[in-house]
């Protein structure tokens, strides 16, 4: 029975989903506390110790809210749209290796992913690419001009930022010679992290990580790239007409997306479970992976509460005139490095 991959998928996938969902909920509380601290106020501190049960209270509150569907909305699509974002995000997290084992021969084997796919990166990127559709459907089906604008912005931004994102994700692939995330992590364990390997290839890797981080911010709709949500002009973007738990699901998906983006960046460029020092066992690997994810996660929210938002045309300018050429250049440089034997 143990060779049945479906059993494995359930055995690892169940805890992973629980972890992500719980993490998403804790993330909302943590972000609000963190933002409160930054803004010299308290943040939620009433429900439970230090307010940690606030997400639970929020979830209950949202479930109690009236579920309103606008009369002019396309009812089926409107109700269908909130289902997909969390599904897609969790699916894309399936191939991220969260831990690693070292067998008796000293072979480093990253595991912990729900599905050990050979085309891991393609899976992640395609799932992230699909995220455009539910949001566009939500924006269109609500039959509201604000959601429509927001949906159009989302499509434009999602499609544009996918290109530099894919190009930057290609660089670890070029170095490791494999599309599997586990292989990329194993390569990094052997040769040093791509963004921090103390070799000539490190500069390309670090630049690629910066670009990948930026573009995944854009994919996750975080400030400074949260054009689709754009509270100041579009109120709440595609979520304008959603009430109650549907709105909550959208918000949860956003937080999950942030966690997955941070985890993916650390797996691709910072070695994932590969330790900088110390033992490389499964527990240590898990701790390292979570630690790296957490650092990037904090950085995302720190940036969020310190920066402003781009305008939509400036966002497109940044993508097509700066990020795409730069990532193309990086891919070429990486290829040359590999061909020249520097990596």
């Amino acid at each position, binding site marked *: 029975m143990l060779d049945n991959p479906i059993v494995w998928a359930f055995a690892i996938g169940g805890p992973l989903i629980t972890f992500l969902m719980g993490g998403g909920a804790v993330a909302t509380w943590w972000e609000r506390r963190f933002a409160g601290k930054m803004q010299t106020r308290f943040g939620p501190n009433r429900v439970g110790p230090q307010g940690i049960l606030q997400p639970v209270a929020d979830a209950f509150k949202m479930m109690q809210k009236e579920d309103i569907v606008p009369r002019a909305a396309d009812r089926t699509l409107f109700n269908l749209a909130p289902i997909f974002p969390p599904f897609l995000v969790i699916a894309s997290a399936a191939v991220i290796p969260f831990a690693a084992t070292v067998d008796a021969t000293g072979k480093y084997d990253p595991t912990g992913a729900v599905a050990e796919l050979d085309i891991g990166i393609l899976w992640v990127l395609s799932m992230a690419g699909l995220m455009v559709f539910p949001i566009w459907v939500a924006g269109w089906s609500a039959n509201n001009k604000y959601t429509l604008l927001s949906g159009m912005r989302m499509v434009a931004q999602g499609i544009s930022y996918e290109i530099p994102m894919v190009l930057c994700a290609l660089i670890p692939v070029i170095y490791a010679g494999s599309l599997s995330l586990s292989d990329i992590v194993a390569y990094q364990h052997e040769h040093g992290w791509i963004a921090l390997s103390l070799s000539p290839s490190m500069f390309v890797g670090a630049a690629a990580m910066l670009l990948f981080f930026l573009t995944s911010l854009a994919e996750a709709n975080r400030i400074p790239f949260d054009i689709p949500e754009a509270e100041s002009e579009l109120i709440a973007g595609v979520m304008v007409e959603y009430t109650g738990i549907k709105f909550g699901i959208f918000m949860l998906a956003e937080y999950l997306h942030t966690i997955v983006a941070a985890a993916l960046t650390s797996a691709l460029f910072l070695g994932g479970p590969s330790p900088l020092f110390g033992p490389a066992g499964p527990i240590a690997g898990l701790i390292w992976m979570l630690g790296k994810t957490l650092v990037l996660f904090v950085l995302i929210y720190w940036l*969020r*509460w310190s920066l402003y938002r*781009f305008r939509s045309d400036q966002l497109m300018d940044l993508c097509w005139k700066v990020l795409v050429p730069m990532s193309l250049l990086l891919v070429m440089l990486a290829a040359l490095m590999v061909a020249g034997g520097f990596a």
Partner: protein
Amino acid sequence: MDIEDYDPDADLMALNMGPQHPSTHGVFRIKLILDGERIVKAVPYPGYLHRGVEKLCEKLTYVQITPIFDKHDYVAPMTNEQAINMAFEKLLGLEVPQRAKVLRTILAELQRIASHLLWLGTFTLDIGGTIGGGASLMMYTFRERELILDLFEALTGCRFHYNTHCPGGNRHDVPEGWETVVRHVMDTIEPRIDEYEAICDSEIFLMRTEGVGLISPDLALETGQSGPVLRASGIDHDLRRDAPYHAYDQVQVRVHVETAGDCLARYKVRVAEMRESIRLVRELLGLLEPGPIVGSKPIKSLVQFKASGGQVYVGIETPRGELGTYLVGGGDQRGAAPYRCKIRPPSLHAMSVLPYVLPGHQVSDVVTILGSLDPIMGEVDR
């Protein structure tokens, strides 16, 4: 543009922004005709907060109007009171003693700092920090604004709608030790402005504001812009220096003028004005000499001040610009109320520039431009 003129085949979209919209600074409605995200035409509709204050002024007597006037520009009530009371004083021929003059000037400058602090916080919200950097900055500016409101609370007993002016002077004298606290607050706020600038100096902020919402000097004058909006368009005009009232002739007001005329210039003018106001407050505290604070008689009855006629116009420089009052005397049978009171709100003129400025900009720029004009809807609609 009316809905009849709207051509659905022209691939344009009419977007109704407001009156319930988070970034219209109250209840303000703009109908935007959009080509994609680009604005082709903008039609503002003010009036959602119209409370008929001018009609009310005709029914109340001179002593009763001051607390009503607090409610216009609810971000700078102190200067509102001064504007209407100066009009009363001109109409009724009342003299203001020196101590009240200096005190009024200090209060006006403190109110200017408080108002600009609130503006800075909300402007950065508009630029895109509603859940982001702007929100952080807004909390910081409100923290400092709170210090100034505490000063007002110590002086007048109220944090917001003070009713501390009366025709002929002030109603509340300075409590003991107030000057020391004011100096301390000024010392606290001054370094904090550097922090705001550190946050606002980001490239994204500059990209969002530079070259956005250009108001040419001619347009600014024709549409009656005043205050920071006018000075950001390169017109060197400040009533505090050019037509001094209160004790402004006893100090030297340095006017900061920017020539660009965009949102960034308006930001720079306001930040410079905050610094200048801090300097002025410090200087004016030295001029605060003992003496009476009311020139004629303190308020004791409903029909204390009477004027049978006369028409005066008085304009003063509030944080938003020239707040003027055109007053026709002799309303009541006893002559104790104005016959007609026309308020000239600077925000209304600032809003009237929107149809000229908005076309050609993106939807996101609407809130930036609106925020940079610093409108207070209570004052626009009255």
